């Protein structure tokens, strides 16, 4: 039995799954001592292209990040935290703390320095792309634990720019 901790939308759940069962059609899990039946697409589809899942008789259109850091469903994007509660160290397998380049471009300015304490939403960098200057903001409060770029540097898509821990 795998024990998976999942946090989203302000709720925390512990989901027990027997990984011995087939995972390509009907799956039964335990959540808070309740047994719930889910129906999933056949295997073969990459997880970030799954598209749908039926849980307890309710079909959900979903898009899930390949790193399990968010799920789009129920009309919005929800930040996920998924922990394998039986792993030797129970740290989240998702919830990436790194700030990545959302678009290729050139770093015009670095507004913070290593070790700075930042608030969520605080501008960290200015990235010029597609003829526009874009401020890159902190996604959560914390300490700037990594700063991988300097002003004038070209960056590619998803290149790590900084990390907040």
């Amino acid at each position, binding site marked *: 039995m795998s024990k998976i901790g999942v946090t*989203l939308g302000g709720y925390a759940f512990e989901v027990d799954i027997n990984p011995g069962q087939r995972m390509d059609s009907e799956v039964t899990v335990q*959540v808070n001592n309740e047994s719930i039946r889910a129906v999933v697409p056949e295997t073969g589809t990459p*997880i970030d292209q799954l598209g749908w899942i039926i849980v307890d008789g309710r079909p959900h259109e979903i898009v899930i990040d390949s790193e399990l850091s968010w799920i789009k469903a129920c009309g919005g994007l929800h930040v996920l935290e998924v922990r394998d509660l039986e792993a030797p160290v129970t740290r989240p397998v998702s919830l990436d703390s790194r700030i990545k380049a959302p678009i290729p471009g050139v770093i015009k300015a670095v507004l913070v320095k290593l070790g700075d304490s930042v608030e969520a939403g605080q501008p960290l960098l200015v990235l010029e792309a597609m003829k526009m200057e874009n401020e890159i903001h902190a996604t959560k409060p914390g300490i700037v634990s990594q700063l991988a770029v300097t002003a004038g540097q070209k960056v590619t898509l998803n290149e790590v720019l900084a990390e907040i821990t």
Partner: protein
Amino acid sequence: MFKKILIANRGEIAVRIIRTCRDMGIQTVALYEESDRGSLHVRLADECVQLQSSSGFFDQATILEIAQTTGAEAIHPGYGFLAERPEFIQACAAASITFIGPPIDVMLSQHDKIDVLQKIRAAGFDTMNYSLMSFGVADFVELRAEADRMGYPLAIKSCIGGRGRGAHIAPRAERLERAFQRAQTETKIIYGDQRVYLERVIRPAHLIGVQVLADDYGHLVHLGEREGSLQRGNQKMIEESPSPVLMQKQREHMWQTAIEIARLVNLRNAGTIEFFVDGSGQYYFSEIKPRIQMEHPVTEMVSSVDIVREQIRVAAGERLSITQADVQLRGHAISCRISAEDPWHHFMPGSGRLQRVRLPAGPGVRVDTHAYDGYQMPAQYDPIIARVIVWGTDRDDCVRRIQRALAETSLIGLPTNLPMHQLIVNHPDFIAGNYATDSLQREIPAIVLTERDARDLAVAAAIIYVRRNLTRPSDIPARLLSGWHQSSRRLPE
């Protein structure tokens, strides 16, 4: 009628124009840049030519040459790019190729925005308050003096008519300089001209445009109005027709004004007369958009008139296929611009492969898009993916239908503003038709998950987590492997 038309544009508007050409039995020539060769506008055309120079769709000489080589008799410019360049219209005429859009005299008369405002005001119509002078790079002192005299909030706009881009708003004096600098930088990039002028901003206001069609024989019809107040960064996000704020009498008055202004400037082909409406219901002329607008399908849905077809007919020297008496405005239409901008990441535009595309369909739904499953979206263009347009018998009907249509849309592979559209169309203010130009400045509260939905999604995430771990490593694409394993290794102990 033309036998072959070259479309000097790309993406959804090129697809839109090609469709009407095919519906009319006219052949089409598409243009594309290397990175965009898989776009639907290329695939649906009869012929296609690659643009080789770095100026791409701005390369007037090359585009005219392609028209001549391929035997195209006319060019449809869509919006943006060459849609409002008087010198291009002149070059077309010199090459004996028909430009599908308002003729050169209209375009020249609309080129200088201060001139236009002067002319309209002189004819007795209300306009926005504006500065009589224009300002160059070095004129900040003069601009500040004029701004202080006019009062805030103010918009700093390019003197050259265009896509509504390059405009920046100074809500108060302290923000004037920054807005001035930004406006000038962008205006230069977009229009190649740095002169700006000031316009008083009414806030909150409604931005409403009346669609006008006119032929060379003096026939002029309007197809009702469109409300385009829901904007983010000067780009309309959602449009609807009719406007939810006008009463029938106001509406008819505005239509009449639009027709009179169109006659005044001798507008031909297709254009939109745009007004701002203030809280008291007074309306003020803002500008004339002498081209097809991105949001034209809402008007097509309520009027059953194909605006592109009328454009082509008029350009070919034919009469409009309809008179004002034929135009019956029926029901209500709403349009959402779905683009690859990430609302959770400062609306950063995205590019790359759309892995899965499922567009809404069924009764009353129309989609205009150049994208499809597997489309590789290039980075260098406007990140629009699709326009979803719905029709309903009345506004309530239409609102429920746009809610439904967005809920059935699925776009996987790129971040999109789809969830933001869903938030808006499900918001009580939108449902009540109670919104204005400042509405999207306010924070839209995020979707609150019910505990049951949260539990369902938690179950989904847990199953997907286990299933991913069960998948044989060789089945996991390399980019996923590196993504996940590296990130979990990299997390501090």
